Protein backbone atom coordinates (compact mmCIF):
# COMPACT_ATOMS: atom_id res chain seq x y z
CA UNK A 1 0.00 0.00 0.00
CA UNK A 2 1.38 3.37 -0.99
CA UNK A 3 1.92 5.89 1.76
CA UNK A 4 1.13 9.57 1.78
CA UNK A 5 2.90 11.32 -1.06
CA UNK A 6 3.63 15.00 -1.49
CA UNK A 7 4.75 17.00 -4.46
CA UNK A 8 7.04 18.77 -4.96
CA UNK A 9 9.62 17.73 -2.41
CA UNK A 10 11.23 21.14 -2.57
CA UNK A 11 10.14 24.46 -4.01
CA UNK A 12 12.04 27.72 -4.20
CA UNK A 13 10.04 30.78 -5.19
CA UNK A 14 10.36 34.52 -4.95
CA UNK A 15 8.29 36.67 -2.69
CA UNK A 16 5.03 37.53 -4.34
CA UNK A 17 4.85 34.40 -6.47
CA UNK A 18 2.31 31.63 -6.17
CA UNK A 19 3.02 28.05 -5.20
CA UNK A 20 0.75 25.03 -5.07
CA UNK A 21 1.58 22.03 -2.97
CA UNK A 22 -0.08 18.70 -3.53
CA UNK A 23 -0.82 15.84 -1.18
CA UNK A 24 -2.06 12.38 -2.09
CA UNK A 25 -3.33 10.58 1.01
CA UNK A 26 -3.44 6.87 1.56
CA UNK A 27 -6.23 5.43 -0.52
CA UNK A 28 -9.48 5.26 1.41
CA UNK A 29 -8.45 7.68 4.14
CA UNK A 30 -11.20 10.21 4.66
CA UNK A 31 -9.22 12.45 6.96
CA UNK A 32 -6.51 14.65 5.52
CA UNK A 33 -4.44 17.15 7.48
CA UNK A 34 -1.98 19.87 6.60
CA UNK A 35 0.75 20.90 9.02
CA UNK A 36 3.65 23.30 8.74
CA UNK A 37 6.99 23.52 10.43
CA UNK A 38 8.77 26.82 10.34
CA UNK A 39 12.50 26.56 11.05
CA UNK A 40 13.23 26.25 14.73
CA UNK A 41 9.59 25.92 15.66
CA UNK A 42 7.22 23.08 16.32
CA UNK A 43 5.07 21.41 13.71
CA UNK A 44 1.77 23.28 13.67
CA UNK A 45 -1.63 22.27 12.43
CA UNK A 46 -3.08 24.16 9.51
CA UNK A 47 -6.33 22.43 8.60
CA UNK A 48 -8.27 19.20 8.49
CA UNK A 49 -10.46 17.78 5.75
CA UNK A 50 -13.03 15.06 6.17
CA UNK A 51 -13.54 13.85 2.65
CA UNK A 52 -13.97 17.05 0.66
CA UNK A 53 -15.21 19.20 3.56
CA UNK A 54 -13.06 21.43 5.72
CA UNK A 55 -13.60 20.17 9.25
CA UNK A 56 -11.23 22.56 10.95
CA UNK A 57 -9.20 25.34 9.39
CA UNK A 58 -8.35 27.17 12.57
CA UNK A 59 -4.62 26.88 11.94
CA UNK A 60 -4.56 28.59 8.56
CA UNK A 61 -2.37 31.66 9.06
CA UNK A 62 -4.19 34.07 6.74
CA UNK A 63 -6.20 34.34 3.56
CA UNK A 64 -3.15 33.94 1.37
CA UNK A 65 -3.47 30.22 2.00
CA UNK A 66 -6.13 28.24 0.18
CA UNK A 67 -6.63 24.52 0.60
CA UNK A 68 -8.86 22.34 -1.50
CA UNK A 69 -9.73 18.69 -1.66
CA UNK A 70 -11.91 18.21 -4.67
CA UNK A 71 -13.63 14.84 -4.79
CA UNK A 72 -12.27 13.89 -1.41
CA UNK A 73 -9.06 12.44 -2.79
CA UNK A 74 -5.91 14.49 -3.19
CA UNK A 75 -5.53 17.94 -1.71
CA UNK A 76 -3.76 21.09 -2.77
CA UNK A 77 -2.49 23.95 -0.68
CA UNK A 78 -1.95 27.18 -2.56
CA UNK A 79 0.00 30.11 -1.22
CA UNK A 80 -0.71 33.35 -3.07
CA UNK A 81 1.17 35.63 -2.87
CA UNK A 82 4.00 34.00 -0.97
CA UNK A 83 5.81 35.92 1.76
CA UNK A 84 9.19 35.27 3.34
CA UNK A 85 7.60 33.98 6.54
CA UNK A 86 5.84 31.24 4.60
CA UNK A 87 9.12 29.36 4.27
CA UNK A 88 9.12 26.03 6.02
CA UNK A 89 8.26 22.39 5.61
CA UNK A 90 4.65 21.59 4.83
CA UNK A 91 3.50 18.15 5.91
CA UNK A 92 0.40 16.32 4.89
CA UNK A 93 -1.08 13.47 6.89
CA UNK A 94 -4.04 11.19 6.48
CA UNK A 95 -5.99 8.86 8.69
CA UNK A 96 -8.88 6.46 8.39
CA UNK A 97 -12.04 6.67 10.46
CA UNK A 98 -11.21 7.68 14.03
CA UNK A 99 -11.27 4.95 16.58
CA UNK A 100 -9.03 2.88 18.76
CA UNK A 101 -6.35 2.69 16.10
CA UNK A 102 -6.35 6.40 15.48
CA UNK A 103 -3.12 7.23 13.72
CA UNK A 104 -2.09 9.91 11.31
CA UNK A 105 0.25 8.80 8.54
CA UNK A 106 2.58 11.53 7.38
CA UNK A 107 4.11 12.30 4.05
CA UNK A 108 7.75 13.33 3.62
CA UNK A 109 6.87 17.00 3.43
CA UNK A 110 7.43 19.80 0.95
CA UNK A 111 10.19 22.20 1.79
CA UNK A 112 9.15 25.67 0.67
CA UNK A 113 11.74 28.41 0.45
CA UNK A 114 10.57 31.95 -0.29
CA UNK A 115 13.36 34.33 -1.26
Amino acid sequence: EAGVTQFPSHSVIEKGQTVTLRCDPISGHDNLYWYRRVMGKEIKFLLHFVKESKQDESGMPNNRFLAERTGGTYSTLKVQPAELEDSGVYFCASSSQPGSTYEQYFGPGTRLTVT
Partner: protein
Amino acid sequence: AQSVTQPDIHITVSEGASLELRCNYSYGATPYLFWYVQSPGQGLQLLLKYFSGDTLVQGIKGFEAEFKRSQSSFNLRKPSVHWSDAAEYFCAVAIDQAGTALIFGKGTTLSVSS
Protein backbone atom coordinates in the same frame (compact mmCIF):
# COMPACT_ATOMS: atom_id res chain seq x y z
CA ALA B 1 -4.36 25.82 25.62
CA GLN B 2 -2.75 22.45 25.24
CA SER B 3 1.00 22.38 24.77
CA VAL B 4 3.83 19.89 24.54
CA THR B 5 7.33 20.50 25.83
CA GLN B 6 10.40 18.62 24.76
CA PRO B 7 13.10 20.18 26.91
CA ASP B 8 16.07 18.74 25.02
CA ILE B 9 16.73 20.18 21.59
CA HIS B 10 19.71 17.95 20.85
CA ILE B 11 21.02 14.82 22.55
CA THR B 12 24.10 12.78 21.74
CA VAL B 13 24.28 9.19 22.90
CA SER B 14 26.95 6.57 22.38
CA GLU B 15 25.96 3.55 20.35
CA GLY B 16 24.81 0.81 22.70
CA ALA B 17 23.97 3.22 25.49
CA SER B 18 20.47 3.74 26.81
CA LEU B 19 18.28 6.62 25.74
CA GLU B 20 15.53 8.66 27.32
CA LEU B 21 13.81 11.53 25.57
CA ARG B 22 11.61 13.72 27.69
CA CYS B 23 8.13 14.95 26.91
CA ASN B 24 5.74 16.92 29.11
CA TYR B 25 2.27 18.01 28.15
CA SER B 26 -0.15 20.56 29.43
CA TYR B 27 -3.76 19.45 29.37
CA GLY B 28 -6.47 19.10 31.99
CA ALA B 29 -7.46 15.55 31.16
CA THR B 30 -5.43 12.65 29.86
CA PRO B 31 -4.73 13.28 26.20
CA TYR B 32 -3.87 10.78 23.53
CA LEU B 33 -0.09 10.65 23.36
CA PHE B 34 2.22 9.86 20.48
CA TRP B 35 5.88 9.67 19.63
CA TYR B 36 6.96 10.14 16.02
CA VAL B 37 10.38 9.88 14.43
CA GLN B 38 11.63 11.62 11.32
CA SER B 39 14.73 10.36 9.59
CA PRO B 40 16.38 12.57 6.97
CA GLY B 41 14.32 12.72 3.79
CA GLN B 42 11.50 10.72 5.33
CA GLY B 43 8.06 11.53 6.65
CA LEU B 44 7.14 11.28 10.29
CA GLN B 45 6.78 7.66 11.37
CA LEU B 46 4.73 6.68 14.38
CA LEU B 47 6.82 4.91 17.02
CA LEU B 48 4.09 4.32 19.58
CA LYS B 49 0.94 5.72 21.05
CA TYR B 50 -0.94 5.74 24.35
CA PHE B 51 -4.67 5.96 24.65
CA SER B 52 -5.47 4.18 27.90
CA GLY B 53 -4.63 1.10 29.93
CA ASP B 54 -1.12 -0.04 30.71
CA THR B 55 1.02 3.04 31.19
CA LEU B 56 4.10 1.38 29.70
CA VAL B 57 3.70 1.25 25.95
CA GLN B 58 5.82 -0.77 23.57
CA GLY B 59 6.49 0.53 20.10
CA ILE B 60 8.43 -0.29 17.00
CA LYS B 61 12.21 -0.45 16.70
CA GLY B 62 12.63 -1.41 20.35
CA PHE B 63 11.24 1.83 21.76
CA GLU B 64 8.95 2.14 24.74
CA ALA B 65 7.34 5.03 26.55
CA GLU B 66 5.84 5.45 29.98
CA PHE B 67 2.87 7.64 30.75
CA LYS B 68 3.03 9.26 34.17
CA ARG B 69 -0.13 11.16 34.96
CA SER B 70 1.28 12.74 38.13
CA GLN B 71 4.13 14.27 36.16
CA SER B 72 2.20 14.94 32.92
CA SER B 73 4.99 13.15 31.15
CA PHE B 74 5.38 10.62 28.38
CA ASN B 75 9.09 9.91 28.10
CA LEU B 76 10.50 7.75 25.34
CA ARG B 77 13.13 5.15 26.13
CA LYS B 78 15.34 2.63 24.42
CA PRO B 79 17.73 0.36 26.29
CA SER B 80 20.43 0.21 23.62
CA VAL B 81 20.73 2.79 20.85
CA HIS B 82 21.82 1.88 17.34
CA TRP B 83 23.45 4.26 14.87
CA SER B 84 20.32 4.04 12.72
CA ASP B 85 18.30 5.65 15.51
CA ALA B 86 19.87 9.02 14.73
CA ALA B 87 16.89 11.15 13.76
CA GLU B 88 14.53 13.79 15.06
CA TYR B 89 11.91 12.69 17.55
CA PHE B 90 8.59 14.40 18.15
CA CYS B 91 6.18 14.02 20.99
CA ALA B 92 2.57 14.87 20.17
CA VAL B 93 -0.83 14.93 21.83
CA ALA B 94 -4.41 14.86 20.64
CA ILE B 95 -7.31 15.79 22.86
CA ASP B 96 -9.60 13.12 21.48
CA GLN B 97 -9.89 10.44 18.84
CA ALA B 98 -12.37 12.31 16.72
CA GLY B 99 -9.88 13.20 14.06
CA THR B 100 -8.54 16.25 15.78
CA ALA B 101 -5.21 17.81 15.06
CA LEU B 102 -2.01 16.76 16.73
CA ILE B 103 -0.14 19.22 18.90
CA PHE B 104 3.59 18.72 18.62
CA GLY B 105 6.60 19.50 20.70
CA LYS B 106 9.56 21.21 19.06
CA GLY B 107 11.39 17.94 18.59
CA THR B 108 14.61 16.43 19.89
CA THR B 109 17.45 15.63 17.53
CA LEU B 110 19.31 12.49 18.46
CA SER B 111 22.88 11.98 17.38
CA VAL B 112 24.58 8.64 17.93
CA SER B 113 28.32 8.50 18.40
CA SER B 114 30.44 5.43 17.81
